[in-house]
C-alpha cells in the first residue's frame, strides 16, 4: 500500500471502527473484539508508514479544498509519525485494559464509551498527520468534542461540572485565541501549510508582534495545559480511568504539546523566534507551570488529581524545552512526548487497577497496598521512577537531553528549574511508594488481591515498554533528531 | 411659493405618517393600532399620487389638442398598494377577532399579562 492509502486508512479505520462498535452494541464480546481489531489494524497501518518516514519520505494525502487555497491535507513528518505511533500503539494496550476496567466496575453506556474512544483516536491521527494549520485545527476541535462524552461518562452532577470546565476551557481557548491566531497567520503568510523553517519566516514581523502571536497560539492551544489554561485537565479526571490514561495522559494532552511544537518549529521557525526576542517569556511561563503544578501535586491527596497535576507539569517540560529553541532541546521535547506517554499511562493504569480492586482513590488510603497488589504497585513504581528521571526508565532519556540542551544554551535558570522539579517529582511520587510497600496496612483491611488479569497484563506491557524504551531508543531518537534538524 | 403652500401635499403626507405611527406606538388597543396602521399607509398613497398630477394635465390617452398628461404610473402602483393595504387590514382585523375570542380582550397589556 502506498503512503496515501495508509494515511487514509489511519484516519478511516478508527472512524469505521466507531460505526461498527455502535452497531455491535448489543453483543459486548463482538463490540470489544471490534475495538481491539480496530486498534491493531490502526497500529499496523501507522507502523507500515514508519520505515519510509525514517528514510526521509514524506507521504501525503490532499483531500478537497475547504476554503479557497486551503485544502484538508495530510503529510507525515517525523514529529507526527512519533505521535501517531505512540497514540495508536498505546490504544491497543488501553483497549485491553478498558475491557477489564469497564466490566469489573459495571459501567453503563459502554457502547458509547468504545465508539467515542475510537472516534477520538481518529481525531488524534488527524492531528498527528495534518499538513496545515486548518486541518490541525479541524481535528483538534474534533478531538475535544469526541472526548467530551467520555469525560462526562458518569452523567452525574460531578461529571457535568467537569464536562463544562473541560469544554469551556478547551473550546474557549481554541476559538477565542487559536482561531484568530490562525487567521492572522493566513493573512500574513498567505498560506497555512507547515513549512520547514517556518511559514512566518519572511513575514518581517517585529519582535512584539511575534511575541503576541506566539502568546495567542500557546494559550490558544489549551490542550498543552500551560498555566492558567490548565484547569480543564484536573476537571477531566471525573472520567473513567482508561480515558484519563490514554486521552488525558497521551492523546489529548500530547496533541496539545504536539501542536505547540509544530507551531514553534513549522509556523514561526526556530530561527525566526531566536532572531527576535519574541519567545523569551515562554520559558518563564513554562517553568512556572512546572514548579507550581508540582507543588499542587504534592498537596493533592486524590491519586488521579495528583497524576493530573503531574501531567500538567510534565507537559510544560515539552514546552520549556521547545522554547529554549536549541536543536538539542527541541529533540528532547519530542522525545519527552514519547517517554512521558508510556510512563504516565502506566501510572494511570495502576490508579485504575487500585480503584477497581479496592475502590480506593486517595493517596492516604494506600498504606500497605503493595502487599495485596504487588504487580500493580510494581508497575506504578516503574512509572514513577520514569517520571522522576531515574535510569533505566524511559524518562531519564529525555530529561538527560533537556539538561544537555539547557546547559548548551547557557540557560542556567532552566537548568535550575529542571533540577528543582526533579526533586519535587520525587517528593510527590516516593511517599506513595513508601506507603504502599513499607507501611503496614490498617487493621481489618479486606483482602481484595489484584485487579482483573487484562488490566494487570496491560500494565505489565506499558511498564515493560517504559523500561525497554531506552534500549530501543533509536527509532524515537531518530525521529526526534530529524524534527530538530539534527542528523539522525 | 412658500415652504408651506408650495409643499402642501408633503405636509399632509408627513402629518398622516407621523399621526399613524404615533397611534401605533402609543395605543394599547389592538384595533386602534390597526387604525394607526391604515393612516400610515394612507400617507404613502398621497406621497405617490400627488406628484404624479400635473395641474392642467389630462389622462394619458393620446388625443389631439392635449399636450400635457399626468403620470399614470403612480396610480397603478398605488392601486396595488391599496390592495395590499386592504389585505393587511383584513388580516389584522381577523387576527384581532380571534385574539378577542382567545383572550377575551383586545388591550395589549391585558393580553400580555395573561399566562399561556
Amino acid at each position, binding site marked *: 500500500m502506498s503512503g496515501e492509502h495508509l494515511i487514509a486508512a489511519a484516519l478511516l479505520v478508527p472512524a469505521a471502527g466507531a460505526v461498527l462498535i455502535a452497531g455491535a452494541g448489543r453483543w459486548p464480546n463482538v463490540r470489544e473484539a471490534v475495538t481491539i481489531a480496530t486498534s491493531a489494524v490502526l497500529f499496523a497501518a501507522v507502523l507500515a508508514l514508519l520505515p519510509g518516514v525514517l528514510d526521509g519520505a514524506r507521504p501525503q494525502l490532499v483531500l*478537497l*479544498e*475547504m*476554503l*479557497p487555497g486551503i485544502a*484538508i491535507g495530510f503529510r507525515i513528518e517525523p514529529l507526527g509519525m512519533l505521535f501517531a505511533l505512540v497514540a495508536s500503539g498505546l490504544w491497543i494496550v488501553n483497549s485491553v485494559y478498558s475491557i477489564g476496567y469497564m466490566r469489573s466496575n459495571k459501567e453503563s453506556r459502554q457502547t458509547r464509551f468504545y465508539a467515542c474512544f475510537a472516534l477520538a483516536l481518529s481525531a488524534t491521527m488527524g492531528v498527528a498527520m495534518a499538513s496545515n494549520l*486548518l486541518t490541525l*485545527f*479541524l481535528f483538534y*476541535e*474534533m478531538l475535544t*468534542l469526541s472526548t467530551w*462524552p467520555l469525560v*462526562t461518562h458518569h*452523567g452525574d452532577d460531578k*461529571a*457535568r461540572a467537569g*464536562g*463544562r470546565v473541560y*469544554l*469551556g476551557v478547551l*473550546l*474557549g481557548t481554541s*476559538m*477565542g485565541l487559536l*482561531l*484568530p491566531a490562525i*487567521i*492572522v497567520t*493566513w*493573512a500574513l503568510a498567505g498560506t497555512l501549510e507547515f513549512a520547514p523553517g517556518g511559514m512566518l519566516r519572511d513575514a518581517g514581523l517585529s519582535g512584539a508582534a511575534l511575541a503576541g502571536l506566539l502568546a495567542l497560539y500557546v494559550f490558544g492551544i489549551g490542550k498543552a495545559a500551560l498555566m492558567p489554561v490548565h484547569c480543564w485537565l484536573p476537571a477531566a479526571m471525573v472520567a473513567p480511568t482508561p480515558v484519563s490514561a490514554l486521552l488525558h495522559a497521551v492523546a489529548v494532552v500530547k496533541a496539545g504539546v504536539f501542536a505547540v511544537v509544530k507551531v514553534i518549529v513549522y509556523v514561526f521557525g526556530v530561527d525566526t523566534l531566536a532572531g527576535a526576542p519574541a519567545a523569551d517569556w515562554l520559558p518563564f511561563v513554562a517553568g512556572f507551570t512546572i514548579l507550581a503544578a508540582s507543588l499542587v501535586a504534592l498537596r493533592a491527596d486524590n491519586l488521579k488529581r495528583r497524576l493530573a497535576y503531574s501531567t500538567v507539569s510534565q507537559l510544560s517540560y515539552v514546552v520549556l524545552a521547545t522554547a529554549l529553541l536549541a536543536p538539542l532541546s527541541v529533540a528532547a521535547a519530542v522525545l519527552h512526548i514519547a517517554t512521558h506517554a508510556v510512563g504516565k499511562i502506566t501510572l494511570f493504569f495502576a490508579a485504575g487497577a487500585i480503584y477497581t480492586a479496592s475502590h480506593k482513590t486517595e493517596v492516604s488510603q494506600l498504606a500497605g497496598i503493595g502487599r495485596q497488589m504487588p504487580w500493580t504497585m510494581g508497575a506504578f513504581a516503574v512509572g514513577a521512577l520514569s517520571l522522576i528521571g531515574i535510569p533505566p526508565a524511559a524518562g531519564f532519556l529525555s530529561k538527560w537531553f533537556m539538561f544537555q540542551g539547557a546547559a548548551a544554551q547557557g540557560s542556567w535558570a532552566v537548568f535550575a528549574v529542571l533540577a528543582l522539579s526533579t526533586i519535587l517529582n520525587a517528593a510527590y511520587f516516593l511517599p506513595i511508594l513508601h506507603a504502599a510497600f513499607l507501611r503496614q496496612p490498617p487493621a481489618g483491611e479486606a483482602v481484595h488481591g489484584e485487579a482483573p488479569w487484562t488490566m494487570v497484563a496491560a500494565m505489565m506491557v506499558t511498564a515493560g515498554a517504559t523500561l525497554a524504551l531506552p534500549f530501543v531508543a533509536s527509532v524515537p531518537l531518530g525521529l526526534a533528531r530529524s524534527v530538530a534538524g539534527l542528523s539522525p | 411659493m412658500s415652504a408651506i403652500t408650495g409643499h402642501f401635499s408633503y405636509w399632509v403626507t408627513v402629518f398622516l*405618517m407621523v399621526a399613524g*405611527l404615533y397611534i*401605533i406606538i402609543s395605543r394599547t388597543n*389592538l384595533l386602534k*393600532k390597526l387604525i394607526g*396602521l391604515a393612516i*400610515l*399607509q394612507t*400617507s*404613502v398613497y398621497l*406621497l*405617490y399620487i400627488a406628484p404624479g398630477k400635473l395641474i392642467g394635465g389630462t389622462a394619458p390617452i393620446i388625443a389631439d389638442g392635449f399636450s400635457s398628461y399626468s403620470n399614470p404610473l403612480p396610480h397603478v*402602483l398605488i392601486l*396595488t*398598494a391599496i390592495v*395590499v393595504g386592504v*389585505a*393587511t387590514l383584513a*388580516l*389584522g382585523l381577523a*387576527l*384581532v377577532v*380571534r*385574539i378577542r375570542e*382567545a*383572550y377575551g380582550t383586545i388591550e395589549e397589556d391585558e*393580553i*400580555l399579562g395573561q399566562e*399561556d
Partner: protein
Amino acid sequence: MLEHLPALQVVLPLVAAPLIVLARHRGFAWLATTAVSYLCLVIAILLASRVMEGGAVSYAIGNWPPPWGIEYRVDALSSFVLVLVALTASFVAPYAHRSIAAEVPAERHYILYAMYCLCLAGLLGITITGDAFNVFVFLEISSLAMYVLIALGKRRKALVAAYQYMLMGTVGATFYVIGVGLLYLMTGTLNLADMAERLRAVEDVRPVLAALAFITVGIGLKLALFPLHQWLPNAYAYAPSMVTAFLAATATKVSVYVLLRFYFGVFDPSALFERLPMREVFIALSVAAMLSASLVAFYEQDVKRLFAWSSVAQIGYITLGIGLDNQASLTGSITHLLNHGVTKGAIFVLLGAVALRSGAISVSVASLSGLGRRMPLTAFGLVIAGLSLVGIPGTAGFISKWYLIVGALERGMWWVVAVIVGASIIAVGYVWRVVEAAYLHPAQGATPVRHEAPAGMLAAALGMVILCVYFGIETSFSVGAARDAALLLLGGAR
C-alpha cells in the same frame, strides 16, 4: 422553455396556491407543495449554473423591455439566494406532512399549504425581481402569507405573535415603500439598475438621504436588525414547527438580500460607508445583537425561543459583514445567509420532530432530558447543527465566521474579532445547555423508550444536518458563489 425559467421560478408556486385551494384536499395539497418546491429547486439550480457560466440573466415580463417594464434579473447574488430559498423549501415541504398533521387541525391544512406556496412565491419574487416596487409587492405577499402561517400555531400566543409581527412588518414595508417613493420622485424610475445610474446625477441629496433612512429602517424591521427584532422570538416560538423552520431559514435572509441590493446596487456604497456613519452604525448594532441576543438565549428556558434569540444574534453576524464592507466580510455575510439558513432550518426541523414525539405544547430545555436515548438520531442531529451554529471547524458556521474574522482583520478591528469569537463562545454555552439536557440529564419518569421521529421527517431533518457539514467541508459552491456575489456588489456593477 429554458429562457422562461426566471418567470416560472415565481409563477409555479404562485399557481400552485390557487390550485390547492380549488382542490381542498390534504393529500393533494401536500403533494403539490412538495412537487413545486422540488421544481423550484431545479429551476434555481439551473439558473445558478447559467449565471455562473454566462453572467446575469434578464427577463422582461410581458416583453416590455426594462426600464419601462418589470425586469426579472438573476445575477450572482440573487441566484445564490434563490438556491437558498428553494433548497430550504424542498427540505421543509416533504417534512411538513407529519408535522402539520400533528399540529394543525385537518380542515385548515389546505390553507396552510396554499399560504406556504404563496410565501414561497413571494420570497422568490423578492429575490428575482429587478423592480423596486415589485419588491414591495412580493414582500407583502410573502409577509401576509407568513402572518397567516404563524397564526395557525397551536397556542393562542401564536395569534398575538402574528399580530405583532404583522404590525411591525407592515410598518417596515410601508417605510420601505416610502423610501422607494422618494427615490422614484428623484429619479423617475423604479428599475433598480436604472435608478442607480440616475441617482449618480441627482444634485439634491437630502431626499435621497431620507430615502436611505426609510429603507434602512423598513428593511431593518423585516430582517430583525438589532433594536428592531422584537417580533422575531415570539413569531419563531409560536408558529407551527414547519413554519418556523421555513421562516427562520429564509424570510430574514431574503430581507438581508434586499438591503444588500439597495446598499451596494442602488446607493453609492463608497459614499454610504465613507461619508455617512453607516459603517459605525452597522458595526455597533451588529455587535450589540451578537452579544445581547446570545446572552438572552443563554438564559432562555423554551428551546424554540432559545434558538430564536440565537437567530437575532446570527443576523448580527450577517449585518456585521455588511458594516465591515470589504470583500472578505461580504463573502462571509453572503455565505452566512446560506450557512445559517441551513443550520437554523435543520435545528427547527429537528425540534419539530421532538415536539411531535413529546406531544407537549412547547419544548423546554428541561423536557429534552433523555432525548439521547429516546431519539438518538434526532439528538445527534441537534448536536451537529448546534456545532454549526457555534462555528466549529468542519461545519458550515465555521466558514462564514472565518471570512468575517478575515474581514475584521483587514479593517484592523481587533475588538470586532474579539466580539465575534466572544459571541461564539456564548453560543457554545447555550448550545451546550441543550446538549447536556439531551445526553446527561436522566429522563423524567419511566425509563425512556426509543421512539424516533417518523422516517420521512427524519430523512428531511438529517438531510439538512448533512448539508450543515457539507457546506463546512466542500465550499466550492457556497463560498465560490458568495465571493462572486461580493465581487459584484463591490464592483459597482449589478
